[in-house]
């Protein structure tokens, strides 16, 4: 983390001192797909190619890493070319707006089915939660842990980018890791449920509680959602049949 010179520390009593204090790294990330601007995000400047790949996967712009011809990191920009750069890519709409825009709902209809129910060990959920139990100060952590012990973690300014990055890392793995459990620090939202389902992650655990919409969406999509996890235990909100207790 960079340090900023001469920041002013203000005490509760109004006393001010000049101090050395930490700040977080942040980068205005731009992702281009086949020459078109795909999205921008504020993110930690870490493994940008993996982040790009993960974002393209969870946004369903591509289905697999094999569709990619090249990934060019160019400062804060990552440019991705697919093997068929002239194919029309229709953005998938995760949130569907109803008549007149008065109502909207998150839709699971365009999501791929999750892998068939393969039981995961209770201990593996705890091991995944361990990975995100203590995120660096000011950051969010996301991790994946597979049944074979393989794991990856990302710390970022937001959970969405942290989670996308680990999905990107997993996509470049040459070994297929199954029985994958996702874990995030803090809370799980429906948006993360959607990303996990697209990425084929059947179990998602968090240190904090999930949102109500996340629980509803996890139920509909067949994802096993655990929350409020720590060494003392966790709460399984949906599809406990996947857990070997």
């Amino acid at each position, binding site marked *: 983390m960079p340090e900023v010179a001469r920041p002013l520390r203000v005490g509760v009593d109004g006393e001010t001192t000049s101090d050395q204090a930490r700040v977080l790294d942040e980068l205005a990330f731009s992702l*281009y797909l086949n*020459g078109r601007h795909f999205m921008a995000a504020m993110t930690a400047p870490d493994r940008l190619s993996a982040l790009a790949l993960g974002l393209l996967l969870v946004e369903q712009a591509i289905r697999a890493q094999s569709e990619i*011809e090249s990934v*060019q990191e160019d400062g804060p920009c990552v440019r991705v070319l697919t093997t*068929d*750069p*002239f194919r029309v890519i229709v953005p998938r709409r995760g949130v569907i707006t109803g008549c007149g825009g008065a109502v909207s709902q998150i839709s699971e209809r365009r999501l791929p089915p999750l892998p068939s129910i393969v039981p995961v060990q209770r201990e593996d959920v705890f091991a995944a939660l361990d990975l995100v139990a203590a995120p660096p100060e000011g950051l969010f952590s996301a991790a994946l842990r597979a049944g074979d012990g393989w794991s990856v973690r990302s710390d970022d300014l937001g959970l969405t980018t942290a989670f996308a990055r680990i999905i990107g890392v997993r996509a470049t793995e040459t070994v297929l890791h199954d029985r994958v459990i996702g874990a995030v620090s803090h809370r799980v939202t429906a948006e993360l449920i959607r990303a996990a389902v697209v990425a084929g992650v059947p179990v998602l655990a968090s240190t904090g509680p999930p949102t109500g919409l996340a629980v509803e969406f996890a139920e509909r999509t067949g994802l096993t959602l655990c929350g409020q996890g720590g060494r003392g235990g966790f709460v399984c909100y949906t599809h406990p049949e996947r857990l070997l207790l």
Partner: protein
Amino acid sequence: MKKTLYWCPDCNVPLIARSCAAGHEGVPIQLLEPYDVRPALKTDHDLIVGLVHERFGPVPVPRVLLLNKTGGVDRNELVIANGDRFGWLSFDPVERQHRFELEPAALPGLIEAVTKGVVDLDRDPAFAGTKIRLGGKRVAVSSDEPDGGVIVKYRGRFGTGVLADGRLRVRELVPVTPARCPNPGWDVVIDRNRLHLKNLERQAVRTIRTHLQDRPCANVSFSGGKDSTAVLALARRAGVTDAFFIDTGLEFPETIEFVKAEGAQVIEKGADFFQAVERAGPPGKDNRWCCKLLKLHPLKRHLAATGPCVTIQGNRWYESWNRAGLDETSQNPNNPLQLNVSPIRHWRALEVWLYLWWRELPYNPLYEQGFERLGCYLCPAMLEAEYDELRRIHPELADRWEAFLARYTASSGLPEEFRRWGLWRWKSLPRKMVELCRTHDLALTPEYELAPIRPPAAPGPAPAPAATPPPAAPAEPGAAARGDFPLLGDTVYLDSAATSLSPEPVLGAVLEFERHYRANIGRGVHRLSQLASQRYWHAREKVERFVHGEGGTTVFTRNTTEAIELVAHGLSWQPGDRVVTTVLEHHSNLLPWLRLRALGVEVVVVDIGDDLALDLDGLASAIDERTRLVAVTHASNAVGSITPVVEVARLCREHGARLLVDGAQSVPHMPVDVTALGADYLAFSGHKLLGPTGTGVLWMREPEPEPLLLGGGAVESVGPDGWTLAAGPARYEAGTPNIGGAIGLGAAVDYLEAIGMDAVRAREERLTSRLVKGLEAIEGVRLYAPEDPARRIGVVSFTLEGFHPHEVAQYLSDELNVMVRSGHHCCEPLMRRLGLPDGTVRASLHCYSNEIDLETLLAGVEECVRGA
């Protein structure tokens, strides 16, 4: 030339001479030009029976039918039976159907059994009362019979005619007395002709034996057709054992199988018709470019291996006017090695078939399926009737040809009839086809070519290929798929050291850039610019990885010459600096250094040894502490020597000198690891690497040189008083680069990596040894190539005693479509060193070269020697 056929009226069989073996005398039947006559084999017999029964009911049709072909729009044959004219069998290329018209002479044998197809003019209300002489006239009738050939009955006489649109054309009316003739089979015909067949055989064998000693060896030219099958049997009786068959690549599978069963040597095709036709257009009877390409060139290769020979062939007078004057022996006008003997030149097809049957010789099964002549399945000499047979029994072969014709027809703006009626078979249409076209209002040019009915179509947008499609499966490890290289269809390309050919994926990548995202790089935010920029960047990544140059700086240039010049021009030279180079160098790796002498730089040129290898000791002596740079070729473009660069790099390191390696001839042909080599600079060309022309690469361990050019794209910032150069390779690439070329070069690298450079090198080493061995065996050839296969690349230089190298190259190009380089190869100092003021002939290989290329070259060189 015999113009009549004899017929035994007692046995009711045809005779090939006047007498019948049963002791009878035959009566002559006048034949039609070109006087060839043949039996109706099963499919033809069934066809005739079917057509006759369809028109006239289940009338008796003799077992022995003869077909006497004659001129017409397409198939047009007089059918002979019972010693007389039976009818006419023809094919309509417009309606795509066979027709049969009965002759009046056939009526006595079948009139009693006729159940339909009769127009009785005595009872026809429309004709009643008409009083005209009927022969050859058209008269109105009200018959319900379908249009076509009919039997006409009138006033107790019978005749034949053609009914069309309610009008009847009567051919002839004669009194007809029903008659019953014997109906022998072909076994009887053979028996009655056996003495004549024995005589024919004896004469033919004698002819062959007479000429067997005319040349050192003898063989049979076997096509898989009936004539050469007969000749093969005769030649074997005469003691000739060798037979060869030239596979044009357009052969029926049945033919190939039959040829192999007969034990003939199959000469592989050297060219690819379907590649060549894309450039040359459809061949024609009057434009037979394909024969030269697919038959004569392979024959030259074969004869170069056999040497002077007598070739027994099955050509006959009756086949065509061209062959009507054939002598017993004839010198092959295209090849002085071959004396042709034609022992059955005076046989008609009937004699051939009777001989095959008499001797119970196996023959090509396609004859029983309706083919009269065999050869290439899309030969322009083929009738449309036969083409329909091809479509019936081998639709997959017809489909491929028709797909081409459809494209050609559309792109040339020609009417569909060009393809559907088989008009592609002539460049300039003959009279009969001109009349056909005029009848159907098809416009012709003054040269009697079919006129376009719309402007020729511009090439349509090609389907966007994948950026780096994998190459087609290679035939062997290290070999590229020749089908990927359009030029190889009709060309033997052995000038790859000058410029290599580009495969389809490279062409596709360049065209895709031009058609779908042509834009400048690094200067725009729009989508096309983004695409072009990324592909350009990716191409550099690929090239860098290809030479294991990650960590260095890889700059795109126009070619090796520019890459070397960039270093020579960009380093800051001081008087007294020394540059060491060698006599092996291409001018591009010599002249930039010689020019430095004007700056006070000392340039030392190291010699080679007698083995054409660099004199390493001399080099070691030349490198001293003043030496700033050593510039050597990795492989000689003129004599193929490989330089031990690792050893040179060690010498350079010892003296603190930089090492520049000219990799123009090595990078495209062998695995190159620039880090392992120890080079500081590596220069090579894209156009020798299967990439586009105008592409080259300079790899630098450190980007020390100053840029050759300054301008847009090369700078980070510019002020009124100066500029800051951009980081990385961009600083060396001022101005708009060859974007499409670089992208194509990236595709070329992908292509070679897919084949595998280790395999490419191993195969080229083997092919080079084959070439060296072949050239060594030719008298008058002097080779300039290192002896050790591991110390040379696929570049072989040679001279031919009595010939200027240009003369040899010109001959090979003109006569055999073999492309080789001749002259000094931009290596004048080396040529002088070798005492070669005229230079050499140079053959150079690549991953698409094959043994057939080499054999064709060797055959051409041998021809030169014989012509000296």
